[in-house]
């Protein structure tokens, strides 16, 4: 089995995986980071979104071995020891989550947007979230949360 070295949430990790192991499987099953979720088989729902080297990817559509040497950030590591990251705080403040299942992917995707665009319009947020499905919120409050979170981040993660 290949041995993989990468950084996960700031910590250097060495993990034994199979070549076919998906990044999300490595995170959930090998590292016990169950905050990253799986909601579909066709790379559409976005519940599995994490940051790889700072940009959002669907961890269900990336092999763990493709993350060799990369820095992976999951929802568990986003706040980096602080209470809540500004984007997490914005989701709480604006009730941008209900059942919580899509939330980790939604937040990670939003962080990537905010890093590119510190003041996204409602339209820009809605377009950006094409790869993240939510069945609970109707997106109304997610959009508000992402806009507020981006402003709070001030363009830097």
């Amino acid at each position, binding site marked *: 089995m290949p041995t993989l070295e990468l950084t996960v949430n700031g910590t250097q990790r060495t993990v034994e995986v199979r070549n076919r192991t998906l990044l999300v499987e490595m995170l*959930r099953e090998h590292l016990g*980071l*169950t*905050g*990253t*979720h*799986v*909601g*579909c*088989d*066709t790379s*559409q*729902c976005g*519940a599995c979104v994490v940051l790889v080297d700072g940009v959002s990817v669907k961890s269900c559509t990336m092999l763990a071995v493709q993350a060799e040497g990369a820095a992976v950030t*999951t*929802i*568990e590591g*986003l*706040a980096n020891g602080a209470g*809540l990251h500004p984007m*997490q705080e914005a*989701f*709480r*403040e604006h*009730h941008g*989550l*209900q*059942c*919580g*299942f*899509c*939330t*980790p992917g939604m*937040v990670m995707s939003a962080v990537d947007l905010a890093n590119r665009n510190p003041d996204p319009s*409602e339209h820009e*947020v*809605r*377009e950006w*979230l*094409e790869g*993240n*499905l*939510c*069945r*609970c*919120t*109707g*997106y*109304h*409050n*997610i*959009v508000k949360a992402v806009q507020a979170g981006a402003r709070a981040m001030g363009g830097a993660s």
Partner: protein
Amino acid sequence: MSGNGTGTGIGASVKRKEDVRFLTGRGRYTDDINLPEQLHAHILRSTTAHAEIGGIDAKAARKAPGVHAVFTGADMEGVGGIPTGWLIHSKDGSPMVEPPHPALATGKVRYVGDCVAIVVADTKEQAQAAAALVEVDYRDLPAVATIAAASAEGAPLVWDEAPGNVCYDWEVGDKAATDAAFESAAHVVSIDVVNQRLVPNAIEPRAALANFDPSTGDYTLYTTSQNPHLTRLLLGAFVLGIPEHKLRIVAPDVGGGFGSKIPHYAEEAILTWTAGKLARPVKWTCDRMDAFKSDTHGRDHKSTAELALDADGAFTGLRVSTTANLGAYLSTFAPCVPTYLYGILFAGPYTTPAIYVEVKALFTNTVPVDALRGAGRPEATYLLERLVEKAARVTGIDRVELRRRNFIREFPYQTPVALQYDQGDYDSTLDLALAAAEWDGFEARREEAAARGKLRGIGVSTFIEACGIAPSAVVGSLGARAGLYESGSVRVHPTGSVTVFTGTHSHGQGHETTFAQIVSEMLGVEFDAVEVVHGDSARIPFGMGTYGSRSLAVGGSAICKAVDKVVAKGKKIAAHLMEASVEDVEFADGTFTVAGTDRSRTIGEVALTAYVPHNYPEGLEPGLEETAFYDPLNFTFPAGTHVAEVEVDPETGEVELLRVACSDDVGRIVNPMIVAGQLHGGLAHGIGQALLEECRYEDNGQPATASFMNYTMPRAADLPSFDLRHNTTLCTHNPLGAKGVGEVGSIGVPPAVINAVLDALRPVGVTEIDMPATSQRVWQAIQDAKAS
């Protein structure tokens, strides 16, 4: 119950207690749980819609690497079938056809997705690989997938015991009176509508993890359920014969339900039984494609309706004839959805004096159909509001005016279809929505759009719901095999903190926050000192779960009753401590006071005394914990007006939803932030039905929509922001005055959207369109109108 909206009490938009764990990845969903020695299961499903099973050869699979067991229907022989929770009687008094539902198919498979075998291995990959080695000899039979196919002359039978594939042929209302109304009508308007099949698609797929402890005989099942106690009842008492004290059901964090996690599913029984056989924990997590084939679907009606009006536009009679597709087996709530959650809704907000509804329910070779957000009420509302809209066009009476002319204004109001509405104010609700939608300025917007080559339209629906289905004695007489009460327990700890146990289940609704607000305000304790526990049959006395917008109205009421009992006992303790008579003790803001004096004791002091009863009333039990069961006196009747405004691109048929304005009466609002969130989600669901979502089958019963690649889920860019208003009247018969909010959007908005689309298309001659109004369907309707 001041409800002043400040701080953390009733009426305040308190931030949710559950959010931090969800936002930091510390939610604990079923698939996140792992037990030592756990095995993994793969459920082998039928690949054909209808077949005799000639034989199953699992020899190769049993020898595959890592495999511990393969079980088929033959192995589970003697285990009970999956039961349904409602018995409906047909017009002629005969009971519905209630076929058996073995957890693993025996003899025949009846839909693509039917459970055929369970393969258990060390890893899920091994289980899946071994499942591919199981050889099933399917001897295909002709299948029926649609209402049209199942009701055709000489159609193949899903069940031999159901001639014509009919499960039941039900009616409600006075047929003779309704027919008479039509005979004397000035106008008769008729409509045919299809309410398409939908897939609920909670983002968390179903999962189950079963365990058995041979040393105690205890079973534990972690499962994605909206109602763990109901699952325990059905699984324990009807399927596996495990008594309640030996069967614990845990529904931990659950990633959305929308009705699809109400039913007791075959997989729950198969997993629990298998864990018992192997004496090892067994875990199964559904993937999305299997979810499309195995989560219960929703809706799937075909209806004809007629409305009789007098010369002034007063509705005088309504006749509805509906055929409903129930799928291959009867799921938990399936029989009641097209009957007692549908037929009795047809008065809507109107004074129609004579209504007759008949519903024929059919079996087909498709996934079982059960409740989906709204369950029956969206189907009724859509049909009624399409018909009323059409009546306005036919009679030439303004569509808002026509609705207003027929509104119920005197309460309580007895409808001709069983329900009695306790309270409402439909005029003000309508006014509020029209103002929010800038209804009066619409024509200018239509002209402006026309100048850009776009067709703009506006549509409205006015509606009522019936939520918190109740009382138990009534639903029992209608065929429910369970009561529909709720339990709540309030445990005041020695230091004054509080744990609340509710039989409802929160899978997004925020009960941990809302119920804490109620208890915090009623007991006068800090919000942070109240913890709400749900979802574990070992911790909660009993419960019926969360569906039908019942949690606050029924579950919240149970908690209120339990708090009342706590206060009553606290008064006795406080009276003793203050050497006063119990009758003289008053309780407010967390303090027991002797009326007219400055003598008082806090709830904390009283709680401590209850657990350290050194100086204590004689004969009174120590402790401060009370449980209440609340059985509602009536349904609740939320009501609203929804307005949608759309623009159609006539070149492509694309419908852009520009704005949605809603005015709703959901009764008492405990947490406005959460209530708004519930409305938003329901609206998205309803808009999805109106414009995007449709589950289709091939004629041979193969699913044509089997993943998110071809089943369109609403995305952020498909929706506008929503404009919400409230016009509150309180429910008169529960302690909170609450009515329910979880299903409002999915019930109210679909006809508003379709009425808007038809309003937009009127200039090009299109008068009818079915949901979903996809680009292709709209474009085709325009072409057809041009051609005719």
